[in-house]
């Protein structure tokens, strides 16, 4: 499949280059970003429904967020919003909107658009994107105070409301849509084509493997003095189709920013093209991604509905080997479910002090003892069996990246050697996120669904509470608790996490509560944290400079996130 993609890519690229020339935008005025997936429906821009509707440039170039969380400072950088403040009890929030913002068709962007879009999300059960589901769960009502002010009344106190919904904490944020276009449409089916936004780029053309955006020289931000017009005249998101073609495109200057590659591939690219850089100057080059990797377990499917067996798998997994073989040493083993940022240290330390830290090495004997205690006996073929049936598991993995498939290959190997007949089931990206994970159509799968916390523990822990459990075959709300963990330990865990929900950031009780809740999580083990995620993104300085790096840290380098607006404004032409 990858080989086929490489061939189609070459022809697509040829077409693209011809097209670009025809429209008279020079290569040195164009930034080409890598897209690691196929755009299933390039003429659908309804981001509130599942599918690739945003990361092909829509939320990096066209739709702007209200705020952007700055990973360097920990502050919310204002964008379309200027400030958002809670009342004393954290259950009412007031948002101030920037003056002078316009949609690309000239209509003004104001409180009506915000009230309309949030209202649409909270009154419509059919729209299912994670951000829309979160807003629906948190907001009781929304009202316009004046044309530039909106008040949100929440269903429960939430000190993290702004960063969770409007701050691009992880990947996206709740995007405001133009009322004058969406009004009267059914948000579950409206395609929003051609799309408009407030960003400095407008949609030019799209296909399943690419999306092209051209600069709008009449952008409001330049007129209102918010930011200068960005330098690139054209932005392209192009599906590269795998590590090999991605590397070739970077080495030959046909791409400016590529998705994750292995350390070896990056070294080979920079050997051929010294203009290609990454986050760090030296080994391991990569930046830390906030979504630590994990093995998600469907707790409703036997024999893995037995928590003892899930804990056995946890013992058998050798995290060091995953780091060394699958990630080529570019990351570290996870110690808990949390991302290992300095801001998370108090919670990680509390969990470790309570004895629930994860081991970087395997303890196969402990794992096998748990399996044998569950009534299994080792068969002649080295696989455990009970009542004539092998202890087997199929692990679903998204085939979009070798990082994912290699990690699962290592785990499959470890489990087989310990006596569990594991096999991997690679599935296409759209199927994985659209059909396998949310509907519980798996036994185990590779994911990062406990992702969320970067400076407090609740965002991650809150994703595995019992209130989000739905039966297999129904869509998990916002990909929360796709493990469908609902036994007694889950109940006890959820009770503590719910109490934590309205504690303020930095409350001294929280680390203790985290450790207490984590005891139940370690007992129930609905997912097994594996390793921290490292992203090695090759960035090309041949045509463009000003990429985010550790030495030029205005924000993280994840150019498929809604925060890419900052990056585009920082890019300058190379001499």
């Amino acid at each position, binding site marked *: *499949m*990858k*080989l*086929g993609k*490489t061939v189609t890519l070459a022809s697509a690229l040829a077409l693209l280059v011809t097209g670009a020339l025809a429209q008279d935008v020079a290569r040195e005025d164009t930034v080409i970003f890598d897209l690691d997936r196929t755009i299933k429906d390039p003429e659908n821009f309804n981001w509130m429904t599942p599918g690739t509707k945003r990361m092909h440039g829509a939320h990096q170039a066209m739709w702007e967020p209200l705020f952007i969380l700055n990973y360097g400072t920990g502050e919310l950088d204002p964008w379309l919003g200027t400030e958002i403040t809670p009342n004393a009890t954290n259950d009412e929030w007031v948002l101030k909107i920037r003056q002078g913002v316009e949609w690309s068709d000239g209509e003004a962007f104001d409180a009506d658009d915000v009230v309309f879009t949030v209202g649409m999300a909270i009154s419509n059960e059919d729209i299912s994107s994670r951000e829309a589901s979160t807003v629906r769960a948190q907001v009781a009502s929304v009202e316009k105070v004046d044309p530039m002010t909106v008040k949100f009344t929440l269903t429960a106190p939430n000190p993290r409301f702004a960063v969770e919904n409007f701050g691009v904490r992880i990947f996206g944020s709740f995007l405001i849509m133009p009322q004058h276009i969406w009004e009267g449409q059914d948000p579950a089916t409206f395609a929003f084509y051609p799309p408009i936004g407030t960003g400095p780029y407008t949609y030019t053309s799209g296909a399943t493997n690419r999306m092209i955006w051209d600069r709008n020289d009449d952008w409001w931000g330049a007129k209102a003095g918010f930011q200068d017009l960005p330098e690139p005249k054209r932005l392209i998101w192009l599906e590269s189709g*795998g*590590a*090999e073609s*991605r*590397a*070739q495109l970077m*080495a030959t200057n046909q791409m400016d920013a590529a998705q994750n*590659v*292995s350390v*070896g*591939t990056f*070294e*080979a*690219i920079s*050997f*051929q093209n010294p203009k290609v850089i990454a986050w760090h100057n030296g080994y391991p080059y990569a930046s830390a991604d906030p979504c630590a990797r994990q093995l998600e377990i469907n707790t409703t499917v036997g024999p893995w509905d037995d928590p003892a067996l899930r804990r056995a798998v946890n013992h058998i997994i050798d995290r060091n*080997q995953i780091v*060394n*073989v*699958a990630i*080529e040493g570019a990351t570290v083993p996870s110690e808990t479910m949390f991302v290992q940022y300095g801001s998370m240290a108090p919670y990680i330390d509390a969990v470790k002090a309570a004895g629930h830290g994860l081991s970087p090495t395997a303890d196969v004997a402990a794992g096998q003892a748990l399996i044998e205690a569950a009534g299994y006996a080792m068969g002649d073929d080295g696989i455990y069996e009970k009542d004539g049936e092998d202890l087997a598991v*199929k692990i679903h993995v998204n*085939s979009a990246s*070798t990082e994912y*498939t*290699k990690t699962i*290959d*290592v785990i*499959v*190997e470890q489990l*087989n*050697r310990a006596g569990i007949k594991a*096999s*991997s*089931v*690679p599935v296409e990206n759209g199927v994985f996120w659209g059909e396998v994970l949310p509907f519980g159509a798996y036994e185990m799968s590779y994911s990062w669904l406990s992702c969320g916390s970067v400076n407090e523990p609740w965002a991650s822990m809150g994703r595995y509470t019992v209130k989000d459990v739905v039966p297999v075959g129904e869509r998990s709300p916002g990909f929360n608790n796709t493990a469908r963990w609902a036994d007694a330990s889950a109940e006890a865990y959820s009770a503590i996490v719910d109490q934590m929900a309205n504690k303020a950031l930095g409350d001294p009780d929280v680390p203790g509560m985290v450790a207490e809740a984590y005891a139940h999580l370690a007992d129930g083990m609905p997912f097994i944290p594996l390793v921290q995620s490292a992203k090695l993104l090759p960035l090309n300085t041949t045509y463009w400079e000003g990429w985010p790096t550790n030495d030029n840290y205005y924000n993280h380098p994840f150019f498929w996130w809604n925060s890419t607006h900052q990056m585009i404004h920082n890019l300058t032409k190379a001499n």
Partner: protein
Amino acid sequence: MTDAPLTRADRRLQRRMRRFDNPWLNPKLLWGIGLLLGIVALGLIGRMLWNLDLVFTGSATLKLPPVGFENLRRQPGVWDHPLGTDGSGRDMLALIVIGAPNSLFVGLMASLIGMGTGIVLGFTAGFVGGRTDDVIRVLSDVMITIPPLLILVVFQSAFGDVSLTMMALLIAGFVWQSPTRLIRAQVLSMRQSGYVQMAQLSGAPTHHIMFREMLPNLVPYLFGSFIANVTTSIVTAVGLEVLGLGPQRIPTLGRTIYEAINAGALIQNLWWWWGIPTILLAVMFIGLLLINLGLDEVSNPRLRRLS
């Protein structure tokens, strides 16, 4: 007369004539068989001499080159892994010791099943005739128009992880049509020959005539067709493997190439990762081609005189 010295031309002629006394001993056939046996021997001897546990992910340092070479990180090859290691720390020698016979196995097995089906259906259609013939003929004519790789890609994707045997069975489903048609045509012409009619007149049962009287006359044809089928089956199997649709955990040459391409082996200059399996596949196909040419000479005496 016998004492008279032979000229060089005479000797050459004599050698040639002697060589062709037995058509089964022609050099193309022998070389072809030799190459394939070499791969089988690699599998058998390698299994005895080499540590096969090295075939598992993470058994060795990643991306080591073969002995005598250096990789991009300037690490030299070591004798512990004479052919180097791949990007997941698997020993290349162990990979080919297990993988090469696996690829051959899929080809042979798919072809055997396909041929077996083809023989039974071809004879039945040609000999029994009537409605049976119509059904078999239409079925094989329809099946022959379906591009196998397309269907197999869908099948394999639906099955997820498949075993080697399962893959052989799936491929066998697409290699029975040609032998069926070939044998049917031969049987139709043979049906009219004297010995068949004699057998019929003497009341021999149908299966006896088909398999005891007629089949032996078709042996060279069947061999030729079998070898062509093995080639097709291996090409199909490797095609699926290179697309990443073969068995997941069982090493095959195609899967090794798939993993190499997928992990960026070309740009990292890890030539041994994709090069060694490619060479082995080339050896396998050259062997099969030589056998096919050799068998042609066995079944077609004119080719022998020409050579």
